[in-house]
């Protein structure tokens, strides 16, 4: 028996310390956390560079080195930056609306069985229609403008949230609810002290999946003519005028923004809200 085993056994009986291993590990360094991301980005760049070297026609496929200066110039290019900000604005409106709508529908489905069946069928229909097919329909209905794109984002991204929240409310632990009742909780307290925190992880998962849907449908609907300005529009226009560098930069920025928002912003919010899940080890007594 190792010393650690002995230690945790005695701790268990005496109950004076946690059985978890002593948390002397410390925080992983920035390098340890970020190198897999860098490797992923790097491998994509390597494939690109090799492809460009084989093709050897810079006007068709510029290599990484030729594209980098253009990338930095883009930040002061009004056409490009206006597009980026316009897309971000649409996301900033459409995504929260979708999350809110999805959460509301999911909660309703959690309360009513009938509504849950209705919502599931509705979602299975909407899910099978590619979001951009709504663009011509909405253009005729709402006219040219941001509203069309925002509506597409909402349609495309409310349902992961709704599904996740619906499943989350179904999965609330019965013992947790009974315990609260035994301790004298009223209906409101059951909702705020048990249902809320218990289904919070489902909200967060839903929000993360919804984000992917929102971003993809935003870019796609800008590309198919739903807008005159935007990151997607910039991409499709520069494709038409055979500006390969512009196309490559758009793709990079589209991927970069999504990765940044998902892995940095949403992930931080998740860790903040569910911090109890990320506490590990005993962390030392007192």
């Amino acid at each position, binding site marked *: 028996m190792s010393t650690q085993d002995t230690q945790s056994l005695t701790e268990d*009986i005496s109950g004076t310390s946690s059985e978890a291993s002593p948390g002397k590990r410390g925080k992983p360094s920035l390098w340890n956390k970020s190198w897999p991301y860098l490797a992923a980005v790097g491998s994509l760049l390597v494939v690109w560079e090799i492809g460009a070297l084989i093709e050897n026609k810079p006007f068709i496929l510029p290599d990484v080195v030729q594209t980098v200066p253009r990338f930095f110039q883009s930040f002061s290019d009004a056409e490009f930056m206006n597009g980026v900000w316009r897309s971000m604005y649409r996301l900033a409106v459409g995504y929260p609306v979708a999350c809110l709508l999805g959460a509301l529908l999911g909660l309703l489905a959690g309360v009513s069985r009938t509504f849950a069946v209705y919502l599931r069928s509705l979602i299975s229909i909407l899910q099978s229609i590619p979001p951009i097919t709504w663009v011509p329909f909405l253009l005729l209905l709402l006219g040219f403008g941001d509203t069309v794109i925002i509506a597409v984002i909402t349609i495309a991204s409310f349902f992961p949230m709704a599904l996740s929240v619906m499943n989350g409310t179904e999965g609330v632990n019965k013992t947790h609810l009974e315990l*609260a009742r035994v301790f004298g909780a009223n209906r409101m307290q059951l909702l705020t002290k048990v249902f809320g925190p218990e289904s919070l992880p489902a909200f967060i998962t839903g929000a993360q999946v919804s984000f992917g849907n929102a971003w993809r449908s935003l870019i796609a609907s800008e590309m198919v003519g739903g807008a005159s300005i935007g990151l997607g529009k910039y991409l499709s226009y520069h494709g038409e005028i055979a500006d390969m560098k512009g196309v490559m930069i758009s793709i990079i920025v589209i991927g970069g923004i999504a990765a940044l928002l998902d892995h940095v912003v949403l992930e931080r919010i998740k860790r903040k809200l569910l911090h*109890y899940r990320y506490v590990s080890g005993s962390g030392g007594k007192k």
Partner: protein
Amino acid sequence: MQKLELKGVNKHFGDLLVLTNINLTIEEGEFAAIVGPSGCGKSTILRMLAGLEEASEGQVLANGQPITKPDPRRTLIFQEHALYPWRTVEQNVGFGMELAKEPKDERKKRIDEILEKVGLDGFQKYYPHQLSGGMRQRASIARALVLNPEVLLLDEPYGALDAITRLAMQNELIRLWRGTGKTVLLITHDIDEAVYLADSIYVMSPRPGHFIQTLHADMARPRNRNGQKFVELRQKIMDNLDIGSYSI
């Protein structure tokens, strides 16, 4: 303090008869135990006393009054500790007081006191998943005791613990209970646990559950698990459950 009574109680879930003709009286301050095979409906008795289930026929009474809904004066300690994973130990223990909207300082004081008593002092800020099984069950007991209930209902509280921890926890339970005058009902399938802890022991049949025998353990505490009386009592219970002997 409360006296608990069941009078002519039947309970069925749909067509399934779970309990039949249950008569039970637990006096104020008594430590009673119900022993029986799994699925015999012993937990259902406890849940009726906790106000989580209603009897199909018959009466379930506390001090002569029918029990219709849960009441913090009668707390149930669940088999799986049922601590909230998103709350720290002190937030879990303070849950009942939080529901009753007691002031924060008062809460803090009582939480610290009870944690000291159950041997969890210093673990206030820990989350349940950072604790061992025994410590979680201690926190769960602290959460019930901090409300100073009149009745403790224990549903196989140590069923999920290893044998060594279980024995230690049984001693702790007696220490916590002695002199408080609380009425206790323990549900268990561990015969030794019942004989070691309880004043009166009710032996239940398989489903549909009814009491086969009531035994009184007139032994002073602490009890000797190998004493003559202890062994006799254990044998009697096993005979009643048809596991006392076997033929080859």
